[in-house]
């Protein structure tokens, strides 16, 4: 049995915690300074039937308020796939650089006469549009026209590394001297899609092709 006067202590503690809890359910009204005007006019009417965003609208699905700051050197966390599910071993001559807020991994690959290739490792939830859309997105990045659906299979190699199935593409741009070349690997893993994209001047990327394929073979679940 608790002495009756002891109840008052528990009641006080319960009241304090209840009061703290109630604050989270209170509708508040206040007057606040206006936010600066956005870059584009907000949409006041339904978006056009084309499904396109208004001019100047930032891409949808990117948070304007990224979450708590996880690690100082990585900055803040935007809406990317959760966690770092995959691990890899990169060749010693690839120079790691800060991954930033979107990339899961990032490397500079130095070549001759100051040439540099970039390896970006990113991951997003879902299939992010599927293989066809992503290959055409990459083609667009190096100035190639989009493929037709029927042509897709011919430009994709399928690799099996351990438990992973990797869709691998090797694209060389049409313009520039030297032209840009892109090696891309798409790795679906537990509801996420991981992208490994190496881009750089074609001769340098050609030199790094064996190293990149070797690098893909080191992929494993963390």
């Amino acid at each position, binding site marked *: 049995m608790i*002495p009756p006067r002891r109840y008052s202590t528990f009641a006080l503690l319960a009241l304090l915690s209840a009061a703290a809890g109630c604050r989270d359910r209170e509708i508040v009204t206040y007057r*606040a300074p206006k936010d600066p005007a956005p870059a584009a006019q907000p949409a006041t009417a339904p978006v056009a039937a084309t499904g396109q965003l208004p001019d100047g609208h930032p891409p949808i699905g990117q948070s304007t308020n990224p*979450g708590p700051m996880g690690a100082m050197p990585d900055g*803040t966390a935007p809406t990317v796939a959760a966690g770092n599910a995959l691990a890899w071993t990169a060749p010693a001559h690839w120079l790691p650089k800060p991954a930033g807020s979107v990339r899961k991994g990032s490397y500079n690959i130095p070549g001759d006469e100051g040439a540099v290739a970039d390896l970006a490792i990113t991951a997003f*939830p*879902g299939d992010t549009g*599927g293989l066809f859309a992503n290959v055409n997105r990459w083609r667009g990045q190096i100035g190639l026209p989009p493929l037709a659906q029927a042509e897709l299979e011919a430009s994709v190699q399928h690799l099996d590394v351990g438990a992973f199935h990797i869709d691998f593409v090797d694209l060389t741009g049409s313009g520039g001297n030297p032209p840009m070349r892109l090696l891309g690997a798409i790795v679906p893993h537990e509801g996420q899609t991981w992208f490994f994209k190496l881009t750089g001047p074609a001769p340098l990327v050609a030199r790094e092709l064996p190293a990149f394929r070797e690098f893909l073979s080191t992929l494993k679940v963390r």
Partner: protein
Amino acid sequence: MAIQLDCFVASLLAMTPPMTDLLRSFRNLFVSLQLTVALLILSLILVFVATLDQVNLGIWAVQAKYFRSFAVLWNVPHTDISLPVFPGGYFIGGLLLINLVCAHVYRFSLGWRKSGIQLAHSGLILLLVGELLTGLLAKESFMRLDQGETKQYSDSFTYSELVLIDHSDAELDTVVAIPEALVADKKSIQHPRLPFQVTVKDYYPNVTVQMRNQSAAAAAAAPSPVTAGLGVQAAMIPLAITYKPDERNIPGAYVGITSPEGPLGIWLVSPLLGLPQTFQHAGKTWEIALRSQRHYKPFAVTLLKFSHDRYPGTEIPKNFSSRVRVRSDDGTEDRETLIFMNNPLRYGGYTFYQAGFDNNDTTTVLQVVRNPGWVLPYVACVMMGLGLIIQFGFSLTGFFRKRTAATSGT
């Protein structure tokens, strides 16, 4: 509060005649050292288990589950039933506080030789009270500033709010902020400051939002009830709740607005929508948004410059710093200051820590902490330190005196 508890326990203990056996056994329990040791062992186990569970739940959920609770609840698998399986931080801390205060009062005796112990105990009591106050009153949020940007508010780490903003005034907006906890109830809300009814049709604690033509997953998503705003062509895809410390759950909801004249539409709201959505009602422009909960301050902070220094020739960070300008609303303060690691800005009851950066070193993220009890741990540590110095000082002088006596005797 410590004084009130002291008085309370003193009056309780003063009820000696006629003290029943039951009361005496309670008194003996609450003043006993065994209880202290048992509680300290329980708290050790609690900290150990909570530290391990942080891998699964992250820092925020672990704090709520293990430390800011009276009991650690275990969810019976495949049911909604939660069972208490271990005492929580408030329970152990509360009992420890009562135990310390009781022992302190019961064994209190005036005299220099006991002053060290008394001081150290008082410090420990103050430390526990300080943690209780921190748990109940402290608020942590963050302020994200681009270079040149000025803000008068910080954003919550974990909570969101549904806001309806009346833009009709030329100077100030009138904001009605509905906390996420109410949105999650999925009910109709009528508020005196709103000329319409707000109905939450559906709510998800963590979502991704994509344009329907953006991905196969979005195209295949279930049709939404949205009739107005950007969400008409978008798909909201629910995701599993994340507990990781470097990620946050981004909620989404379908919200209907109904005026006395009839429905105005149903909007998709989520912090993932890049721009505000507005609608007209009775000649006024209203904005509807689900955003991170804002905490407004009576002063404005402007980021003048963010610096990210590296060791020469490497990418290894050396220092992060934000030069900011602080201007109070009443015009009494207008100054520049530099915030860097371990050198926070303390102003207006808030502490601003350098916490992160983004956008190629042009955006800073400051952690904003308001903790009215922040000074208590420092005072408590000084008291405990002094108490121990005094106590051991007495022992040391006693030892020297004995040795001198022994030496002079030989």
